[in-house]
């Protein structure tokens, strides 16, 4: 029974982490209209920053406080990365921006692998000390439950933050720039500023997801942050609908649950899940290219019903 419960908790934490990633990617790709393919780089930066701080400060701070500090540090490092990439690269457009950001993420991965092993563990990976609470066979359920709570809280906060940002004056400017940069700049909007802000905000949320992931796994390797994960995030965003925040939550749940369920389905199905998974997504794209929600939110559906 506890095994089953652990499996579900694992799944749900995974959904939480990917919701964070998808929401932040959606801010950049969906709302700001930039074609960014290097989100897994920011994710890895956040995770490794958190792991590094945990190792350096273990014992000198009380556990939960250190936990929170590493989340903040992961966000800060990823945001700094976002700023460093964003300012030069946001001059690029479309596919050129995509390949530049993808190149950035590859640099992050290669750097982690090739730095001396005692800094970040190299390709062997890096253990992350359990600082939130002691984790053992008895407390596994409690640990995963607690992480789920934290992840849920983080998702709610981030979604609220991004929703409010989009509705703020600057968010409106961002949408205008995304729709038509020339027209927006003719109206006196500086196109660079909102784009950089959105990019840095998205990067820092990915860093938060990375820090959560590092603490949840207890061990991270460069293989955890491969391009495949970026594909997953992107699929979640497209599936839920570019420019829909609630779509991200639903999409994250669908994608992560499908992946996990196919993985433990009867052998005949499970053996082929790596083929079935992309196949399902390709079919989804063919039959509903705008995603589940399009640009709408869950709330819009209810509102329309009330009016009718």
């Amino acid at each position: 029974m506890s095994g089953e419960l652990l499996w579900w908790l694992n799944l749900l934490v995974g959904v939480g982490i990917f919701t964070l990633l998808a929401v932040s990617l959606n801010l950049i790709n969906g709302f700001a209209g930039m074609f960014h393919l290097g989100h897994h780089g920011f994710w890895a930066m956040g995770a490794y920053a958190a792991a590094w701080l945990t190792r350096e400060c273990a014992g000198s701070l009380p556990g939960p406080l250190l936990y929170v500090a590493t989340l903040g540090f992961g966000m800060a490092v990823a945001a700094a990365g976002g700023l460093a990439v964003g300012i030069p690269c946001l001059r690029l457009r479309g596919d050129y921006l995509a390949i530049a950001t993808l190149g950035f993420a590859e640099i992050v991965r290669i750097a982690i692998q090739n730095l001396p092993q005692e800094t970040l563990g190299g390709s062997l990976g890096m253990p992350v000390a359990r600082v939130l609470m002691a984790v053992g066979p008895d407390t596994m359920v409690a640990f995963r439950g607690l992480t789920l709570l934290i992840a849920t809280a983080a998702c709610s906060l981030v979604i609220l933050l991004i929703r409010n940002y989009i509705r703020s004056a600057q968010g409106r400017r961002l949408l205008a720039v995304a729709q038509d940069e020339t027209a927006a700049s003719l109206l006196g909007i500086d196109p660079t500023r909102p784009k950089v802000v959105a990019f840095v905000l998205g990067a820092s949320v990915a860093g938060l997801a990375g820090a959560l992931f590092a603490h949840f796994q207890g061990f991270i390797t460069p293989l955890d942050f491969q391009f495949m994960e970026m594909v997953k995030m992107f699929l979640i965003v497209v599936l839920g609908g570019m420019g829909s925040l609630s779509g991200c939550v639903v999409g994250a749940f669908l994608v992560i649950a499908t992946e996990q369920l196919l993985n433990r389905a009867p052998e005949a199905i499970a053996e082929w899940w790596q083929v079935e998974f992309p196949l399902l997504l390709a079919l989804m794209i063919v039959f509903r290219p705008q995603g589940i929600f399009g640009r709408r939110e869950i709330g819009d559906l209810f509102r329309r019903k009330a009016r009718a």
Partner: protein
Amino acid sequence: MLDYLLNGLGLGAIFAFIALGYTMVYGIIKLINFAHGEFFMVGGFLGFFALRDLGIERLPLPAPLPILLAYFCALTVAALGSGLLAVVTERIAYRPVRRAGRIAALITAVCVSLILQNLAIKAWGADPKAYPDPKVWVDVDDLPARAESNLYARRVATTSTGERVESEERVVVEGEAIDRLRLKSEGRGEVYRKVTIPRETTRGFVILALVLWTPVLWFLVMRTRMGKAMRAVSEDLDAARLMGIPIDRVVAYTFFLGAFVAGVGGVAYCVTYGKIEPFTGFVPGLKAFIAAVIGGIGSIPGALVGGLLLGIAESVVPYMLRDWAGWRAAFAWKDAIAFALLILFLLVRPTGLFGRPLRVKV
């Protein structure tokens, strides 16, 4: 230094081969064909099987001809096979989403890439395989009394499940006396020795192939009816359709041509590195895409120049950093250096070397 430069040129020629397919497909339907690296990988595998199983080296021809012929056949099989695969993929996966927008097409391409990669794992296993060395078959009677190199023979066995398994067996070790009677009585009247192709030869052939292919492609695109149709479609798809150009055929032809060239590149890459696995396509695919972007995506000469530049940069820049700047780990970082150069390059010339600047109509 010169050696690194030549190595880079050889590698760059392979990147150029892959980049051509990217750039042609992109030029026509504005799709980053993520599965292109997988066409390349399948080409490598087909070449592998052709070299291992066709047995062309056994043809009774004067010395270097059988080996040359074997490689020629491997290249042909690889090129045709991956070309056909591309046409089928285009028909099944890309045509239905062509009208659905660029993001949908891109996602489909990523999915196709994953599916092909995993099908290759299912069919051929995930472990790297050593690319077969060319063999020189000899009659036992023609051998000197003392073996000048290791000699091998094929052994065919039937397993308990009735499956035919072929394996290789070393029958004579270098320097050993050859017992002709024993070999013949064991049914090994013919044995072969393996030839290792020097790196310089492979490199030379790859560059030669690129030099030969470039005018062919140029001719196909600039001087044939189909090439004219391709250029028209890339200019304006809808207008071309209205002019009666059969879009579907032109797109299929483009996919075929791109993957055909990628198949050649796949065999060349695997011969250079001596191994093949289902993940072979990913990194060269990514790099070739970068090469296409550097050259200006959509431009054929751009893909050639971009590929060569990237190959040279990847080989020479780490060399300079190691030997001139004293950074000993430079070669482990060569991919990172390539990507950093790409980003820097894009900042200076955002549309690549030969790319047309984007016109913005207001």
